[in-house]
């Protein structure tokens, strides 16, 4: 466990040290970005609209009973921006993209393709890890931004259409604009950047350390997804505590 964390931190450090070489890997970064966007955009849209909607659905009637329904826009807005957008998108990406990364690199390790790279004096971290980590660190905050916006709209749709809530689109949005500040959105985007690094490094690390054939690849994929999600949820708490310093 601790050895794994140590190895992952070392991989992260080696990737950061290779950042000046990022331009030479731009083609692979764009390919990965396309892959991530293509695989996740529709799912992100569906997930976010329903998350925004369900928060409004759960909290709206309770707030109405207490005469607080006017703050619904702010409540959904803050929840999506600071917590649910970044965490839910990261969990989605860990499952959808992290697993694909671990499987692809794991299969390369199992079938000696990574050994072949080494014999050509090609650094596997620069060739495989750098473009993937970079792409996910660019794509995830963008997806989270998209998710926050779609989640807000999902909440607005449910608030205005559900008779037990009955908050107009305008008053929902007005309250959201009053309550949610730019720094709340930035807070969520910062979290998503950290989570992206976690997914990228954990998945690539599991892939690179794959041993055995198809079973080994399967194990690496499972570990990549499970470890990424566990780390995201643990880090979420500590990041939230850390970011609360800037809220005061």
């Amino acid at each position, binding site marked *: 466990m601790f050895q794994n964390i140590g190895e992952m931190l070392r991989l992260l450090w080696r990737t950061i040290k290779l950042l000046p070489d990022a331009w030479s890997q731009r083609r692979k970064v764009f390919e990965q970005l396309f892959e991530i966007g293509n695989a996740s955009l529709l799912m992100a849209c569906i997930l976010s609209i329903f998350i925004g909607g369900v928060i409004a659905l759960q909290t709206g009637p309770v707030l109405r009973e207490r005469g607080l329904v006017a703050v619904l826009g702010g409540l959904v807005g803050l929840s999506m921006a600071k917590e649910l957008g970044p965490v839910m998108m990261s969990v989605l990406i860990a499952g959808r993209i992290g697993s694909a990364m671990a499987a*692809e690199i794991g299969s*390369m390790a199992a079938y*000696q393709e990574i*050994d072949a790279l080494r*014999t050509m*004096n*090609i650094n596997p971290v620069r060739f495989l890890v750098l473009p993937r980590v970079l792409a996910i660190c660019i794509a995830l905050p963008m997806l989270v931004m998209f998710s926050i916006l779609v989640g807000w709209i999902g909440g607005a749709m449910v608030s205005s259409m559900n008779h037990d809530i009955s908050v107009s689109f305008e008053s929902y949005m007005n309250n959201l604009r009053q309550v949610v500040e730019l720094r709340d959105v930035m807070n969520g985007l910062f979290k998503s950047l950290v989570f992206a690094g976690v997914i990228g490094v954990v998945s690539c690390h599991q892939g690179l350390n794959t041993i055995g054939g198809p079973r080994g690849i399967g194990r690496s994929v499972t570990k990549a997804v499970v470890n990424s999600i566990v780390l995201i949820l643990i880090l979420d708490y500590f990041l939230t505590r850390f970011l609360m310093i800037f809220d005061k």
Partner: protein
Amino acid sequence: MSQSPQSNGGVGVEVRGLRKSFSGQSVLKGINLSIKPGEILVVMGASGSGKTVLLKHIIGLEEPDAGEILIAGEPISCANVFEKYRFGMVFQSGALLNSMTVAENVGLYLTEHRLGNPAEIARRVKETLSLVDLHNIEGKYPAELSGGMKKRVAIARALIIEPQIMLYDEPTSELDPLSAVTISEEILSLNQRTHVTSVVVTHDRDLAFGVADRIAIIDRGEVLLVGTPEEIRQSANDVIKNFINADFRKDRK
């Protein structure tokens, strides 16, 4: 055959007291070997005798528990050995990158080390593929190739590096006899053209006795004998005799 790749000629390899264990099981038990520059050394031995592990040590893919590998007198652990000398390896499976086309695979070394513009790399890829008698397959993916073609693409990928040390891991395994002969001829002609130092790990007796300057027989992690093909044939060692004369006949009593 078209123009041959340039090379600075092979360099010598020295293996001294090499030991390696995996999970407490000793695989190499103090291997000593000296490979002369430009020589073809064939390493033979039963399955599990440690041949591939030895090869992986020579190219730096494994770290020894004890002993050392010297490349032209310099320990392989020195940081600049891989910058200074060019290595090529043909893996048993070919180990072509499946997500890349043949041209991208063969040109990978040049692309990643920025040794030419795309047009020049494309030209050299075409030339190198023609050296192994492959034409118009640049756009194909490894999955679309036969076993023999994959092996030849893997040789082309190693060849474009203009290696000074070339390692082959079971280059004729899984091939039909005709393809095996073609690969054997490639190994010989590459050695004659460029004087590359070659280490060939194989079970294939025809390949071994056909291309070797010297043969090393390994048994259970130890070198039993190193000698010319003739010396190996005349060896009185029972293990060696059994290995090189092993035969199967349906009607044998």
